[in-house]
């Protein structure tokens, strides 16, 4: 039945490793004279500890504050002058820096990234100013945002010992107390060629590219990587719930279950469940909540793909007047119960698979997007092309698998429910 679209997708990657441990993943595409250059560091908030939560992200900001041959903020300016754009992001499992630019400027991007991997300038002044910027970012993303508050409450309730319990941006008090020494130590232990992967896509020549990367990164000494002991999350034994009273017009709800790490075989099945529940307007929960009950503005299931075990989350946004949180909570819980007692139909399963396949193909349109997929896949599962291979897992999933997986994870004792409750109807 399935015509294999995946087989039409050409994503040939080539790999190389420098002597200092720097890994290179290259994909040539000569359809346009442009490239995406990305440096992925194998460090994120999962490598932090209480007291310095948020350091990976604050440190990412410091990477723009100048290195031996580059003035503070000059990195972005040079890239722009040459027609490129650049940015970076920090997540739970990784930190990535990227430049999208004309192919002719490859060496420029390589030189700039190598300079800050090897010779970052870390000063009291730039740290003081960037600390304020990051605090404003936290105020914007978390303290003054319902989405941010909900997510922070969810992860800090569902996780007790694993670092996923704090937000990537960190606790405000920790952002305040991270010292220059903390930053220097963090730089020494995590920013090294043997803890990074260069992903380079677009209008490049394999051999020439390797020699350019070798020229600029080749002399950077590897770091002695220590085996970090990251606390393991114990299996949740009983249901957890937390209510947050906030200034909001409508209540919100998040219902979450612990699920395994990205490389686990159950993840593709859980993703299909996510689609069956909320993928498109014909999906089960969308139809029920938005059309039949008309009880909320949106409902969405998300499935964490993390290096360590994460969460399956159903979020219901803005529960309308005349409806209650209890009513919506039982609708969500019943939809999960139903997966355990009744098989999903062949058509529903096929629809979910088709959705996964299409979204994969649409996600490959730019060099940058392809690089992102490769980088995430590598950081989370160890396999740069795992996201394409996953298509086979989707295709082989059966209605029985869905039922088994639902039974395994959607249990009351594995559940965490977070509710945002309006303090008062202040908008009236």
């Amino acid at each position, binding site marked *: 039945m399935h015509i294999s679209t995946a087989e039409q997708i050409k994503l040939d990657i080539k790999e190389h490793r420098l002597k200092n441990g720097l890994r290179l993943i290259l994909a040539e595409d000569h359809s346009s004279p442009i490239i995406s250059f990305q440096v992925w560091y194998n460090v994120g908030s999962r490598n932090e500890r209480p007291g310095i939560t948020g350091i990976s992200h604050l440190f990412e900001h410091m990477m723009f504050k100048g290195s031996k041959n580059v003035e503070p*903020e000059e990195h972005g300016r040079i890239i722009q*002058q040459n*027609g490129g754009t650049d940015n970076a992001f920090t997540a739970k499992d990784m930190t990535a820096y990227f430049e999208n630019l004309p192919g002719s400027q490859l060496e420029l991007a390589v030189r700039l990234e190598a300079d800050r991997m090897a010779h970052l300038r870390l000063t009291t002044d730039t740290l003081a100013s960037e600390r304020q910027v990051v605090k404003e970012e936290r105020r914007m993303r978390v303290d003054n945002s319902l989405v941010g508050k909900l997510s922070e409450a969810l992860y800090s309730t569902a996780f007790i010992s694993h670092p996923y319990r704090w937000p990537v941006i960190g606790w405000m008090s920790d952002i305040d107390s991270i010292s220059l020494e903390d930053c220097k130590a963090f730089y020494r232990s995590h920013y090294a060629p043997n803890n990074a992967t260069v992903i380079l896509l677009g209008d490049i020549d394999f051999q020439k590219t390797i020699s350019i990367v070798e020229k600029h990164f080749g002399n950077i000494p590897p770091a002695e990587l220590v085996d970090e002991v990251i606390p393991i999350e114990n299996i949740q034994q009983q249901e957890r719930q937390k209510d947050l009273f906030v200034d909001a017009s409508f209540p919100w709800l998040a219902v979450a279950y612990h699920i395994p790490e990205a490389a686990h075989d159950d993840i593709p099945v859980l993703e299909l469940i996510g689609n069956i529940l909320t993928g498109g*307007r014909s*999906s089960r929960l969308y*139809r029920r909540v938005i059309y039949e009950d008309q009880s909320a503005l949106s409902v969405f299931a998300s499935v964490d793909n993390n290096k360590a075990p994460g969460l399956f989350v159903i979020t219901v946004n803005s529960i309308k007047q005349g409806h209650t949180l209890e009513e919506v909570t039982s609708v969500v819980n019943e939809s999960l119960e139903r997966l355990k007692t009744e098989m999903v139909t062949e058509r529903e399963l096929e629809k979910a698979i088709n959705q996964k396949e299409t979204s994969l193909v649409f996600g*490959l349109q730019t060099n940058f997007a392809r690089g992102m997929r490769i980088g995430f896949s590598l950081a989370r599962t160890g396999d740069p092309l795992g996201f394409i291979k996953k298509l086979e897992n989707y295709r082989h999933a059966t209605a029985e698998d869905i039922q088994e997986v639902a039974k395994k994870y959607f249990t009351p004792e594995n559940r965490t429910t977070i509710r945002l409750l309006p303090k008062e109807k202040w908008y009236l």
Partner: protein
Amino acid sequence: MKYRKSTLDSGLRVIMVEHHELPIVAIELLVKTGSVHESREEPGLAHIVTQLLREGTHTKRSLEISESIDFIGGSLGVDCGYDSSSVMTTALVKHFETILDLLSEVARFPVFNAKDIEIHRDKTITTILREKDNKTSIAGRHFSEMLYGEHPYAHPPIGTMKGLKAISRDKIIRFHKTHYLPNNSILTVVGDINYEKTLAEIRETFGGWKKGTVPEQTLLPVPEIDGYKIRIVNKPDLTQTEIRLGNMGIARDDPDYFALMLLNHIFGRGPASRLYTKVRSEKGLTYGASSGFATRKLRGPFYVRTYSKNETAIETLLLVLDELKKLKSGGVTEEELESAKSFYVGHYPLSIETPAQIASKIIVQEFYGLPENYIDKYLDNVMAVSMEDIDGAIKRVLDPENLVITLVSKSEDILEGAKALGEVELKEL
């Protein structure tokens, strides 16, 4: 850049971009009617019409429409802007006929059931109420209202509570009938297609769509601002103040478009800009500071957006005002202009990497009635901008003495500071 244009007998403009890298296709039908074409009594009419398109047609119920698009893993969406409305669909190219038919069906034959109208009226009203939980949305709505007064650009296309309550089924049906016409629309198909075959399929699917009379649309002129017009919207739980300020900018077909695009790049776009450098990099007052020209059919706003904790919000505002004044009096340097040009020239291939990006450039040219050679001349136009052009554009468009300033905050934290700038209007949510 490879593309084809064609016009059907019905007046429907067709744009096709052939791109074979991936087996995908995207189709958009743009109708040249948006919220600006609503009467004053019914803000939200154009928007609710778009929302209702996919809720059922003469031959397909709402659920059937959703089921058929979801099953193939495709997408079907609608959008309503100030000047135009769109129906967009995407899928793997093997489903091209299915999505072309669906798009034609929902755009041309919606039934507008009374029940669906009520569902969407309620949903839209709830969405507008929810804006009050988000300082960015609050700032956006108040800023537009202060800048545009009675003009339809004064509210976002989603409309107003009052307007939504007033919309009747008859008005919805009439609005659709009057504006959704082939000679008022542009159909764009991009992706893994073949021109001749695609055009033939479009002719077959849209062949029966009859030309109509597109109503003469006289649009209200936009108002003038005199001095500082300051408003604080009080949201007592905020610890960070949302700052939005600006004045009337330009329409998309303005002759100074390229000069102002470069000027804005220098002033407030990206990490090398003056605003970012001053407010974020040097002072650490914010995470984001940017400016822009929202260019539309008529003059859209020139705006600056930033935010800072309440304690430093006024300091941040003063810094932005100071940068604007410096720009007005001192202009830009040749070095800044050259650097902005080299960004646009170098960046050009990155801005046409996907067929959708290519199509959006062609749609802009068509929709705003820009010269046929607009795309071919794009980089020439960038390179041709002189220091004199920039000075002239600054003189004509930037007006730092006459501005709308919107602050969303816990008012008691910033009221005194704001008053030093002039009269302040205090609004509760």
